[in-house]
């Protein structure tokens, strides 16, 4: 749940995504060998799709409770919210889940090189946005 929240920054959509991932597992009727890995990948991919589909990164604003009123935190949140969906997912897996690039690639089902390049672009963009 918190991983999805770290990608969408929206509680309701995160809950929906967790639910849908679990429903997907249920529909597979026991054919999934590694349920944990399936759910992990599923929630991230669903979050990416949700961000793209609904353009959450532009529509969703942090709730009142999420605004911290600490400039460094709020600026960082705003910068992450401006990232494209795939970059945001990679950043969440690396810096919230604290996964290695290889593990991030495993979760996403991407080549490690794609994770590295996506993370590199995300960091470039974040650095530019956070520049004083």
């Amino acid at each position: 749940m918190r991983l999805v929240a770290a990608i969408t920054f929206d509680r309701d959509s995160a809950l929906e995504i967790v639910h849908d991932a679990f429903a997907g597992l249920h529909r597979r009727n026991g054919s999934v060998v590694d349920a944990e890995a399936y759910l992990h990948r599923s929630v991230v991919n669903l979050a990416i799709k949700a961000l793209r589909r609904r353009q959450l990164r532009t529509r969703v604003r942090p709730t009142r409770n999420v605004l911290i009123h600490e400039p460094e935190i709020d600026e960082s949140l705003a910068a992450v919210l401006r990232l494209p969906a795939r970059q945001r997912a990679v950043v969440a897996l690396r810096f919230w889940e604290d996964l290695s690039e290889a593990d991030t690639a495993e979760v996403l089902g991407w080549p490690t090189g794609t994770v590295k390049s996506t993370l590199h672009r995300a960091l470039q963009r974040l650095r530019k946005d956070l520049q004083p």
Partner: protein
Amino acid sequence: MTTGLDEPLSDASVERRIRAMYQVVVPLIDDGDEITLRDVADRASSHNVGVVVTAPAPPGRRRGWASLAAAAAAGVAAGAGLMAVADRDTDHITVPAATTVPLAGPDPDMFGLANGCASAHGRNPLDEPIDAVLFAPTGSAPNGIWWCPSKTCSSRAACRRTVTPC
């Protein structure tokens, strides 16, 4: 000589700021007012949890259902042998055999236990629903725990008659 103020941020500085932001912001989004993964994972690790049964969400309680789905995932991750999930759109608490999902080493008795407990609650659908039932699958004895986070479930006695809590 440089003041440092105009120096570009390093990747490490960006990373530190983003990590700090997550630590503050994410817990506020998922404020833990439902079952947390940690709750279930802790219980699962100490009780060799084998089954997680989640009740469907009554109208207006889908949030709870989603949290329970996450809780069930944690139970599975912690070694759950069997998981039963009820349809989120039903408005009564029943977990028919058709909705059970054997994940690893299913014990046939577990189906009966899960269904029995859910049915016991299903007879009182207007009660505060039981939120999760965790069973330890060791052997065939129902020596598991059961757990109703709401602590207001009036069907608890019925559930106790159906299964034997440890």
